[in-house]
């Protein structure tokens, strides 16, 4: 079966833009802020988040932060700079090599997964530190595909105050990014977490985003069963792997579990929205 085209996942871009700009404005102002910041990796997700934020708050109110490590691809920083320049957003560059390497060497961490997680979490640490100085909220860049697959670092890239991309599959992220004129240099390169040299998302996952989106959309949005997907001709190993990943990574999508002891417990029967009393 060749890569699905996923035409059925196409969205109305102008409508999505209107909704997401309105979402960003209202949720940020309800929390008492007028400014935001986000990490720019040079990839399409953070580029789209930044483009939406620039439209919502004005580019001068969106701090783009490039967080290169010495092992990062050179193009990652170049593309982050290109995007910030195009949008007219201030760009701050914070090298994370010294801090990351100090820890990795001290603890002799060689496992690439652990090394990648440390980098992702250090980036989170910098963003949350800068958010105090900038007096702004951290905007997320995780899309629906990677959140459902659990292809994120918990408390790393998955940590943020609000996320305009969390209900967009990768296919839709690209579509909206094209609509918002994200530079083609960013759109054309293979997606990569860039936590190790030569790494690509699709190489890590063992299947393409086109398949992931097609399968996730059917299982989650359309509520189809695995056997229905197999009848449609999707490869059994990929469907099975993806279905397992959705279940196994539910913990990453929820706050930590709390043991109930009292009559009223946070997370169980103390039920209020975040917007409560804002």
């Amino acid at each position, binding site marked *: 079966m060749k890569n699905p085209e996923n035409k*059925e996942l*196409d*969205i*109305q871009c102008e*409508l*999505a833009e*209107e*909704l997401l700009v*309105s*979402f960003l404005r*209202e*949720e940020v102002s*309800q929390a008492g802020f007028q400014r935001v910041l986000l990490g720019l990796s040079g990839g399409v997700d953070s580029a789209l988040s930044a483009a939406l934020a620039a439209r919502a708050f004005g580019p001068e109110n969106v701090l783009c932060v490039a967080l290169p490590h010495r092992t990062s691809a050179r193009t990652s920083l170049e593309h982050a700079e290109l995007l910030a320049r195009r949008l007219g957003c201030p760009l701050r560059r914070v090298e994370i090599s010294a801090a990351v390497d100090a820890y990795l060497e001290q603890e002799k961490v060689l496992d690439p997964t652990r090394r990648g997680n440390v980098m992702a979490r250090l980036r989170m640490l910098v963003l949350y530190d800068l958010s105090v100085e900038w007096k702004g909220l951290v905007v997320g860049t995780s899309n629906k595909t990677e959140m459902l697959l659990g292809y994120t670092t918990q408390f790393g890239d998955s940590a943020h105050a*609000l996320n305009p991309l969390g209900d967009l599959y990768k296919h839709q992220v690209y579509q909206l990014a094209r609509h918002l004129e994200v530079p083609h240099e960013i759109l054309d390169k293979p997606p990569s977490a860039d936590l190790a040299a030569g790494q690509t998302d699709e190489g890590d996952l063992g299947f393409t985003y086109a398949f992931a989106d097609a399968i996730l959309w059917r299982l989650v949005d359309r509520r189809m069963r695995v056997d229905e997907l197999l009848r449609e001709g999707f490869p059994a190993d990929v469907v099975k792997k993806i279905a397992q990943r959705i279940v196994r990574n539910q913990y990453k999508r929820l706050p930590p579990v709390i043991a109930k002891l009292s009559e009223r417990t946070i997370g169980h029967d*103390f*039920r*209020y*929205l*975040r*917007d*409560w*009393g*804002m």
Partner: protein
Amino acid sequence: MDCTVRLSQLNPTLGDLKHNLDLHLREVDAARRQGIDLLVFPELSLTGYFLKDQVSDLAMRLDDPLLARLLAMSNEVSIVVGFVEHGAGDQLYNATAFLERGRVLHVHRKVHLVSYGMFDEARDFSPGAEFRPIDSRLGRLGLCICEDLWHVGGGYTYFLERCDAVIVPSASPARGIAAGDEGLRSVAVWDTLLSAQALLFQCWMLYCNRVGWEDGIGFAGHSAVFGPEGRRRAQLEGLSPGRLDQRLSSATLERTRVRTPLRRDERPQVLLDALERALHPPAPRVPEPAAPTESEPEERGRNPRPWRP
């Protein structure tokens, strides 16, 4: 009914009664000055929608001073406002009050609470039990709160009761942005519902939805007025607060009902019979007695008597 209605597409702040009351008072004041007869606010307009544990904190009885502020302004303009009602038996209702000439003329309690998908109303509210028409100075009106319109019972009741307009305060979330559709899917679905009920029940449909965001759920606005022939007469575009004014005329209602006399030709007894059969099916029939056999003559089986030679 001949009057001018205004749908006030608000963005209430979750749980902030004082702020929301001020918002309402400003709208009422503007409507009064601009000669509006009927001012409609969305579902739970005084409280916000996803209340969860805030429901009991925000509930009010009908003599609440906050409602009194609105009542005091209802002499020239009739007001439809959404709130959490604290009932006499301590039930909490998702309710809408109809205020007119300083009186609470009617309270509609949402009958069809919505508890699927992102909704959980049945956990927090008690359901209302009736659709009762309102005899307003403007004419005979009905109220359906949001999900109430997904069931035909409300609209049909108001049709039988000869209501001229059904008011539909709503808090419907925006969803569905697929490229194959035109605009929000949820808005298209509401348009279909409103158009269908207007057409079938030959009344004005006044749909007032809210806007704004609560924890990542955006409300879809697109408040609209549908005429008694099922056509959309006016609609607010976009996702911002706004006001939609519409003149409603009796002549339109009369013409529609003369051309297609649905109410005259309606036969509620047929429906009533069907409901009787559905709700009260006849008791299962007692099985027939077994057929008599040669050795046991029928008479003896039915009417046992001591056998005599």
